[in-house]
């Protein structure tokens, strides 16, 4: 491998900047898709609630995908909330009423963040939301 790349050292800032521009260029398309994905997720979870049949593995996989991408495009809060939701979903076997509400609140929170286009760490209220959700996740473990 080293023979192929030749001598050099350190970061290539121009290349990193070019890669960042790629992300920036794809951001508009991504935002539209993310909002649709979260709208669908809200609807799908509502269907699970109505049917009282929860496919948590499917939900976990979808949220895991969403959170993996969101931060790359600046939606760090979606990644943070998604991570909390995945953490909460993992040990659940049968969904209680409290857990159901907690799951739905996480999904709604991700959707609201995107609908309001809150990127980065967001305002102070966003930090409170994440702290509140962290508390909920911890309490559902008890």
């Amino acid at each position: 491998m080293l023979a192929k790349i030749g001598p050099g050292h350190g970061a290539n800032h121009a290349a990193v900047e070019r890669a960042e521009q790629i992300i920036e260029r794809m951001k508009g398309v991504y935002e539209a898709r993310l909002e649709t994905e979260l709208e669908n997720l809200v609807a799908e979870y509502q269907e699970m609630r109505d049917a009282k049949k929860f496919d948590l593995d499917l939900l976990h996989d979808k949220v895991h995908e969403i959170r993996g991408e969101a931060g790359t495009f600046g939606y760090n809060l979606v990644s943070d909330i998604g991570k909390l939701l995945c953490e909460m979903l993992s040990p659940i076997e049968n969904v209680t009423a409290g857990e159901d509400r907690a799951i739905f609140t996480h999904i709604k929170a991700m959707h609201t963040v995107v609908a309001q286009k809150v990127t980065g760490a967001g305002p102070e209220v966003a930090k409170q939301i994440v702290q509140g959700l962290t508390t909920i996740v911890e309490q559902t473990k008890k």
Partner: protein
Amino acid sequence: MAYNLEHLQVQLIEDNRNMRALVKAMLNALGMKDVRDYANGQQALDAIEDFTPDLIITDWMMSPVDGLEYTRYIRGDVDSPDIFTSVILMTGHTEKWRIITARDAGVNELLAKPISAKTLYDRILAVIEKPRPFVRTKSFFGPCRRRVNWKEYMGPERRFQEGDQAGLSDFNEGNVEDGIDDVEKLLESL
């Protein structure tokens, strides 16, 4: 002088189509022109006879062959084209046990999702500039799993045990329903 990455042969393995397209475009922008992408480890495995990679960048969770299974193949299978091929594992899971599992499979570097242009490039640089020496034991072959100068590491601790989160010790003892009500009110003001 920056490295010339143009001639590196790269396998990119990621089952999320959008993420795959994004990372491939980023790698191209970083100067890597020969990037072949696959939706899972099996596809990469099927292609490896015709395309021997210098660098593998792979997601973890995929089927039918996931990123760790593919790494184990590269490190240990008699048909592996190069057991020393560098492997960067992309993952959204940063729990300590998962990191240990990845290291035990022979991964060189971990790239935590969400990724950025800088973190992606930093991991590639780490593979080039700080390669871990390969070691062989009875049960392992791969890059040395000991972090060099661990005691001198001054950066943030990003490896959590499952359930560890900043601020967990500050939790109040209210009930879940109250917490949900509070969050719903906060969401209205976001």
